[in-house]
């Protein structure tokens, strides 16, 4: 690992620490966090810290105890985290792969433009497969929604069409329980029956009415996978849940 990548990993770790202290759930690249604390304690990475300070990414108080991200550092960290979580989404949704392995390498090599196009391809997801927020990019603000994306929002689906749910941006915890009770979850195939005055979908044999906001948060694969309903029975791909039970240690 070269210095440049290592520096990035520190910034990312700092972002997680920030996020965690603001009540967010958990950190992902745990290896970095532990190493960061080790490294700073043992003073092993002076070189990198100096580099980060000199490039104005972080500030260190006089006592040398607390490290703070500068606006510039925050921006850089934000980009890395965004890339990391989008990469997870991509690997998990598209490839059905173990999400932890590739994501950390990925985040260091992709450019801003590439990240934005991946974001667009995935329909601007709001959270990673772990349920952690993905920092928004310019593309999300412009909300150049469907043009280039393979994942579209349910409200963009044509009426009468089938689609498989890619992921659901879950606005709140309670909703997870309700959605699961109704079997609205990734991997399940739904049919859009109507969109006005209220969205009605068919899901596992059940008709469900939902409001526009929720329809926007349900993201589905573009129809290429399912041309028509008759092919639907084709088993939904077996999904592994590799991130479950990942331990910190």
């Amino acid at each position, binding site marked *: 690992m070269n210095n440049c990548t290592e520096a990035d990993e520190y910034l990312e770790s700092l972002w997680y620490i920030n996020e965690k202290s603001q009540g967010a759930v958990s950190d992902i690249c745990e290896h970095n966090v532990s190493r960061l604390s080790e490294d700073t304690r043992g003073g092993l990475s002076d070189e990198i810290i100096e580099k980060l300070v000199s490039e104005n990414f972080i500030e260190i108080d006089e006592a040398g105890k607390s490290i703070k991200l500068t606006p510039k550092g925050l921006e850089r960290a934000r980009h890395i985290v965004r890339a990391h979580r989008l990469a997870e989404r991509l690997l998990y949704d598209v490839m059905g792969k173990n999400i932890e392995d590739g994501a950390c390498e990925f985040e260091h090599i992709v450019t801003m433009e590439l990240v934005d196009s991946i974001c667009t391809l995935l329909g601007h997801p709001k959270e990673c497969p*772990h349920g952690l927020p993905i920092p928004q990019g310019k593309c999300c603000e412009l909300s150049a929604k469907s043009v280039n994306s393979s994942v579209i929002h349910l409200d963009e689906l044509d009426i009468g069409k089938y689609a498989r749910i890619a992921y659901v941006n879950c606005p709140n915890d309670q909703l*997870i*329980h*309700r959605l699961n009770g109704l079997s609205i979850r990734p991997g399940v195939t739904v049919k859009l029956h109507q969109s006005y005055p*209220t969205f009605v979908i068919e899901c596992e*044999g059940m008709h469900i009415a939902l409001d526009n906001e929720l329809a926007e948060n349900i993201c589905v694969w573009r129809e290429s996978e399912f041309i028509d309903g008759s092919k639907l029975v084709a088993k939904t791909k077996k999904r592994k*849940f590799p991130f479950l*039970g*990942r331990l910190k240690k």
Partner: protein
Amino acid sequence: MDKVRKVLILGLPNSGKTQICNNLTGTYNLVANYHHTTIDVNRAYYEHGGVLFELYDVPGLYCLYANSEEELLVRNLIFSEEPDVLLFCLDANLLKQSLMLGIELMELGIPIVIALNAIDETSKKGIWIDTAVLSSTLGVPVVESIAIRGIGTRKLKNAIEKARVPKASIYYGDIVEAGVAKVVQELPEDFPFKRKTAMLLLLNDRFLEKDLISTCTTDQYSDIQKSITAITSQFVGSIGKAIYYKRSEWVDQLSEKIVKTQQFDQRSMAKTFAKMSRNIVTGIPILGMIILITYFLVVKVAEKITFIMESYLWKPVIDKISGFVTSPFWWDFLLGSHGVLSLGLGGAVLTVLPILSVFFIVFNVLEDIGYVPNLTVLTRRFFSKVGLSGYSIMPIVLGFGCKTMATFTTRTISSDKEKYIAIFLIAFALPCAPQIGLTMGMMGKVGFKAFMIVLAVLLFTELTAGVLLNLIMKDDTKNTYLQALPAIRIPNVFAVLKKTYYRLYMFLKEALPIFLFSAVVLFTLERTGLLELTKRLLAPVINNFLGLPNDMVDVLLLVLARREAAAAVIMDLIDKGRLNFNQAIVSVTLTTMFVPCFANLGAIIKEIGFRRAMIAAFFITTSSILIAGALNKILLFFNHG
């Protein structure tokens, strides 16, 4: 019999629980083809093999995590009653959704028996469920049933005795399992279902946390809190998602094992009708047609029934009695204008009963085919204008059936603001099923135009009240609208008739004594001169402001007792020509809005407390008089009386 075995029937909403309960016990509870019909717990008993079984029919639920008071009620019942057997009513049409609930029930460690219900519908769809594999995989007896036709009842009775603790369980991974074990240890000794409780606490169940605070010492509670934070922070991301993924995986694997499909796209009439009833272009005309047909049936057919009953049943009997009674006092008591027979019995049986019979048949058909919930699709946007974004639509639509029941179903609303608005609107200008029937009956005597005017006024009032309340009240949590719609089905004639019979029976049982009693009270008031006094006192309001004759005082007094009784008198007044076109409209509008009936008031108090209920009732009563007065002036302006 020394021992009573408690059996709790659980399942998704609308999965046939009540029907199964009725089949098993031979009792009758209203069954409807939509969700949330069982709002309170029904208990019934039956005997089998020398053992007495106590059956609890409870509201349906999707998971044990409580989202609302209603779901909490069910969970508390499981936790507090600790039933001997869970009868899990598995809706074969909604296999995956049911299994999702099923795995949670199985984790409780209570002996379970499964009723695989509605298999007739799945086989029509070409779906075959391997009951034997399901039974052997889960390790519990599974009985196929078609509850609506009573099939499978005897087998079920036998199976309940053989209920087993299921052997199926999910391993949630090291972190969750270790965490659950830790929390289980920390929970107070006497806490029931510790594993499930621990699991729900990990999922951040707010109701359970409240329970915990009240039963634990502060130390215990903070220990538990600490463990939970420790576990969740070990976790990558949301623990809720992780747990649900494990369950989904389990459900997918199991259903793959037991379901065999022959897929063909079935396009049934019922499906097309469901679609049409929800689409705005076809849905609104369908709604209009339904109202028109109902109006025609209620007015014309009920009129015929009344006529036949009057000439062949009532008249001969009354003439006989009239001949017997010689004392003028008793004649007046029985057959006078406030007579127990003429006003009390006659009003109930002759005037109200035919209308209600016809109306209930129509309404029960609509209910049975599952039309009602589809209305929410059509009306959601409209309701959002009055501050009702999500869950409250269903209670309001149910309010057309019965206000009291609808008021109880507002428990599903978690936003306080929405709940209050819904309760208020249900109590205010929303006519309930008997009222709609009676309004049609009353207005039918004056003309369709009058009926439409009344409807328009009520709608306008309701909207204004909703918009105002929405403006006045502070916003709180926003509800997401997510509503499962039942499949539309061909009406079951037998079920509809049976339900109509029971609804009428309930009406007579509840209302007839009140009809008779109010006649006696009115008779007494008249004899003592108090009625005259009241009329004179109220004259300025009744005569001048509302433009109604003095007789309306009787009506208003009757409204307090029972709306149907008031309606009977109004119809009588219209028949006698004492209410003209305008006055008929004003009096019907007034009595529809006027103070909520006792049952409804009781429900309101239960849901939002005495003080707020009284404020609402006061507001409703005053505004109903003001609105009726204004309506009178407007009608006079256009129609010159």
